[in-house]
């Protein structure tokens, strides 16, 4: 059973797979602290469940539904697509001090971090 604050397994797996594929495609890497990666992917999956779109979990919104519909901050957001800027630290360019060497994270690794 999922913790009520967590995403469904289906959405988590979808966002996990997206994150790996997108990192490879853009030549970006996950954070040296995999806890950061895990938390962000769980947050994206949770928004996918709740809003139908993976809205960035590292921002505050007046109206989450309206923001998801506007799509600007849906992952991958416009700043990421245009300039490889991810303030959530999910996708880091190799010159970033916090970039690790991995473009992979397993489902269990994520849940080990996000389980209460």
């Amino acid at each position, binding site marked *: 059973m999922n913790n009520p604050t967590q995403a469904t397994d289906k959405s988590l797996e979808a966002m996990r797979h997206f994150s790996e594929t997108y990192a490879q495609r853009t030549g970006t890497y996950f954070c040296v602290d995999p806890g950061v990666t895990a938390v962000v992917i769980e947050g994206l999956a949770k928004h996918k469940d709740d809003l139908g779109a993976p809205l960035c979990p590292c921002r*505050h919104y007046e109206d989450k539904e309206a923001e998801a519909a506007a799509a600007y901050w849906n992952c991958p957001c416009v700043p990421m697509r245009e300039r490889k800027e991810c303030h959530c*630290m999910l996708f880091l360019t190799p010159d970033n001090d916090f970039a690790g060497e991995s473009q992979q994270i397993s489902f269990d690794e994520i849940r080990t971090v996000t389980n209460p």
Partner: protein
Amino acid sequence: MSAAAQVTDSSFKQEVLESDVPVLVDFWAPWCGPCRMVAPVVEEIAEQYIGQVKVVKLNTDENPGVASQYGIRSIPTLMIFKAGERVDMVVGAVPKTTLATTLEKYL
């Protein structure tokens, strides 16, 4: 025990705006990765400046009123309040030295 207490929409006025000492507020959210990185830095600051600065945390998901009032967008955002006014802010997972330097200006 955490050195930085949680504040809410209802306790913000008393705990932050009416504080006798400057207050550092860590605006965070549960599924924000960089918030995890900055949390230990905030705890260290709380211990280092004990008695000089009050350090508190505000969950923006659960307390949208204060977060919206101060125009919080990117999280984490660290905001400094003095005598009821916002005097400075730092956005993102910053190193301890950056945060300490910003804070020192208001002591």
